[in-house]
Structure formats: C-alpha cells, structure tokens
C-alpha cells in the first residue's frame, strides 16, 4: 500500500531582518511516499535548512502547510528524527555512545531502551562501541552513531541534513551504502538534503531539484536505478551518468523566483 508520508503544500518562509524581509523558501510543494527515499538537491544557500527546520517543527513557517502521515505539523512531531551534518556537535559528549542512542527513548522502559539502542548500533556496525564516548570515535563512526540514534527512535520520517558532507570521500561511500542497506532492512522513509549531485542520484528513489533562494521545486526526477546499487557499477552506468548530467543542467540554469514569476 502506497500512502503519503509527508505532504508539503505551498510552503513559504520569510525571515524578518533589520534590513528588510528575506524569503528563504516560497511556494514549495511536494510529497514523500511511505518507504521512499527522496533527495533534495539545490544550490548552496537556497533555503534547504529552512525547509528541514519547517518540516521538523523547529520553526513555524510563515505560509503553507506540512503534514506528516496526514497530521498537520504544529510543533515538533513525535515520530520524526533528524541527522545533522555536524555529528560532533549533534552528539552529546557527556554521554556514552549507548546513552546517546538511548537519548530520545525516554518513554520506554530501561530494558527496552537498552535493547533498541543495541539493535540500532548493530545495524550501523557499532555493536561494540556502546561504552565509548563519541569523541573517542572517528568522524565516520560518530555519524554512524547519529544514524543509529535516529533509527532507534523508529521515526515515521527520517530527515537528513547534508549528513555525509563532513566526512572524507571513502567514508562517505561507506555511509551512503550503509544508509541504503539500513533503509531497505527497516523500510524507513527518508528525506535527505544534499548539495552533492552524485549523492542525490546515487541515494534517491526520486530527486527534487530546487531553485536559488527563495527555493521552489524546479524538477522532480524519478531515479530508475533499482534497489541494488553499488559505488562502482552504479556510478558508471549510463542511467546514472545521464541523470547526474540532467540534475547538473537543471541546477546551473535553475531560475530565480523572479524569472519564474
């Protein structure tokens, strides 16, 4: 059964500053179906963060609506998890890895918390790191912990804000494949924001291309690369090369809102 997990309709947000108002996003409309992995790619500074913050209820958008499985978002939704780019600042250094993963599970019993965190850590290949502290791990491992924390929460929607932008290329490939495997195993719905064109095509079932600020959806491309992907053959396949060229072209000619009007 396909149902809509996330419904973003005519979303707009204007920041009020001393030197006038600034439209970060405007008229954004798209949906994410249950079980889908959608990548949002856009030029830097186009308002991607504002979009994620509106969806996660951290800010109240000035226009439009966001609905999560049919419920309008008003405040932070209970079944949504976020993985930020800056893992070193998003993990809590005073807590062990295990405790970090257990952090959002406060409503569960102690035994359940331990079990869930253990499962999530195993899913990201860190079953033996629970007693360590985040700062004793490498950057890639820290981001795995952040992913495990989000997974342990069993969110209806997993939001990822440039999750692999701060790790080296090798680690980035590993983490991308980890994400693909985990979301297949756990049937997680993911909305991932990135500025990396290749990454958006490699990971996504669909790629949403945004315009320059204020961001609008310029194109929504279906990615027909199938479920099984790997870093070498997929990235050299004709379909991949063609799609990345298309996204790149769209980004380069991405109109500003003024030319659209």
């Amino acid at each position, binding site marked *: 059964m396909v149902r809509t997990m996330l419904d973003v309709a005519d979303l707009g947000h204007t920041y009020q500053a001393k030197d006038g108002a600034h439209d970060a996003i405007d008229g954004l409309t798209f949906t994410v179906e249950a079980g889908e992995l959608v990548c949002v790619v856009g030029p830097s500074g186009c308002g991607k963060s504002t979009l994620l913050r509106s969806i996660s209820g951290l800010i109240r958008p000035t226009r439009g609506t966001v609905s999560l499985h049919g419920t309008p978002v008003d405040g932070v939704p209970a079944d949504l998890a976020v993985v930020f780019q800056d893992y070193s600042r*998003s993990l809590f250094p*005073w*807590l062990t890895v295990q405790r970090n993963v257990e952090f959002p599970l406060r409503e569960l019993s102690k035994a359940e918390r331990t079990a869930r965190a253990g499962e999530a850590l195993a899913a990201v290949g860190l079953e033996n790191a629970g007693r360590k*502290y985040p*700062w004793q791990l*490498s950057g890639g491992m820290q981001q795995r912990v952040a992913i495990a924390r989000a997974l342990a929460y069993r969110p209806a929607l997993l939001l990822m804000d440039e999750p692999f932008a701060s790790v080296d290329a090798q680690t980035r490939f590993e983490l991308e494949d980890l994400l693909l495997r985990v979301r297949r195993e756990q049937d997680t719905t993911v909305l991932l924001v990135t500025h990396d064109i290749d990454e958006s095509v490699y990971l996504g079932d669909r790629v949403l291309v945004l315009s320059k600020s204020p961001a609008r959806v310029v194109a929504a491309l279906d990615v027909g690369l199938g479920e099984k992907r790997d870093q070498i053959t997929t990235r050299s396949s004709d379909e991949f090369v063609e799609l990345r060229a298309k996204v790149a072209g769209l980004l380069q000619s991405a109109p500003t809102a003024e030319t659209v009007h």
Partner: protein
Amino acid sequence: MGFLLGKPSTVSGTRRVPASLVGLAGLFLIWEVASQTGLVPELYLRPPSEVLPAMVGLLGDEKFLRALLATVLATVIALLIAILIAVPGGLVLGSIPLVRRACMTVVEFLRPIPSVALIPLALLITGTGPDTKIALAVYGALWPILFNTMYALDELDPLHVETARAFGTGRVAVLTRIALPSAAPFVLTGVRLSFTIALAVVVSTELFAGGTKGLGQFIMEANSGGAHMDQVLAGTVIAGLVGYAANAGLERLNAKLFAWNAPRGEAS
C-alpha cells in the same frame, strides 16, 4: 582510547609532584632561615622546625580536632547551600533573558560587597552561633557558582539544543538533560573557587566572634598573650592544607567526571 584519558594526567603527574614538593621545601627553608637568623622577630614567626612538630601535636589534640571539624563542617554546609541556591538561580538567569535583565543590576550591586565586611553586622543580627558564619560564607560563595552557571549557558551549543528538540524534548527537559550537563564542568569550577572563599569567610568570622567554635577561634585563643605562636602558625598552616586538599580533590573530581570536556585534538 584509554591513553587519551590517561596521557595528560600521567605526564603532568610525574612532572608536577616533585616540582611542587621542591617549591614547598624551598618555602620552609626560607622560613626557617628567616626565623633563625632573626630577619623577622623569632618570637612571633616561629621556625618550621617548631611549627611542624606543633602541627603533629595538634592533630592528636581533641580540642583542636573539634575546632577543625566545626570549621570544615560549616564550610561544607555553606558550600552546599550556595550550590542549591546558585545553580538553579544561574540556570534561570542564564536561560530567561527577561529575568536576567531584571536581576543583573541587583546582582552587580550585591556581588562586590565583601562578606567579611558584613561580619560585624551579621554578628549583631544573628549572634555568634554557627548559622552566622554559614550565612556569611553562603553569601560569599554564591557568586562564582552563579556566574559560572549563567555564563556556561551562554556557551551552550545551539545544535545540542536543536537536536534534543527535534527528538521531542520539551523546554524544561532541555534545561535538565542538555543545559545542566553541558554547564556542569563550569559549575564545578565555580564550586572550587567558592570553597576557598567559604573557608576564608568561616575562619574570619570565627576570628571575630569569641563564642563561635572553630579553627579561627582556636588560632585567636592561642594568639592571645603571644605565648603559643607555634600553635597559631600550626593552625594557620592546617587551614591552608584544608583549602589545598579541597581544591586538589575537586580538581580530581573534575578530571574524572568531565573527561569529555578536556581539550583534545582530533580523535583518530
């Protein structure tokens, strides 16, 4: 992983301990020479060769030990009360800008008043019981804890807060689960500074007030008539040692509890 925690302490540990002992021995040597050669009146500044045995004698003297215990107890109680007031106070002042703006003028007015200057007034109002010295010590010890807690909240990482909020953590829970643990190392530093202040205020009050039992009163009595200068000095040195031990203990506690806050390079 283990060496990350162990390395800094072993390096400083092996180097610092002998160096500090040499410094201490040097101080005693200068003191001894100054006293023996009559550079300072020997009658008042007894040499360490007399003071140290007097110290050992005091540590076996029940009257002295009771006085010492009274002083340490008063200091610890004052410190605990100061923590109970200043930590929640600092959390509120640090997280609610309106309250902070409203309170800061009062705080900045009260803070510079030295608690020692309040001793005569406090003695008149509350008498010479232990509550007087505790109250004064609380007053003196409040400020470092309050300010450290408050400023620690200014340093709070917004991404920590945002992460917690995105996982559905409410405002109050953010304060207790994020702000408080982030601020804890700074709070402990405040407590360390405050211990010294509390001890000084307690001993000073005891010096002033004849009836208040404690180290200060013991020193004052030994001082009267100038007959027991070795005991006066021994008492003073022990007061110093109490302060030193508390400081070292709290520093250790800090290293143990807040290893996560220690400066470090990139983890490998």
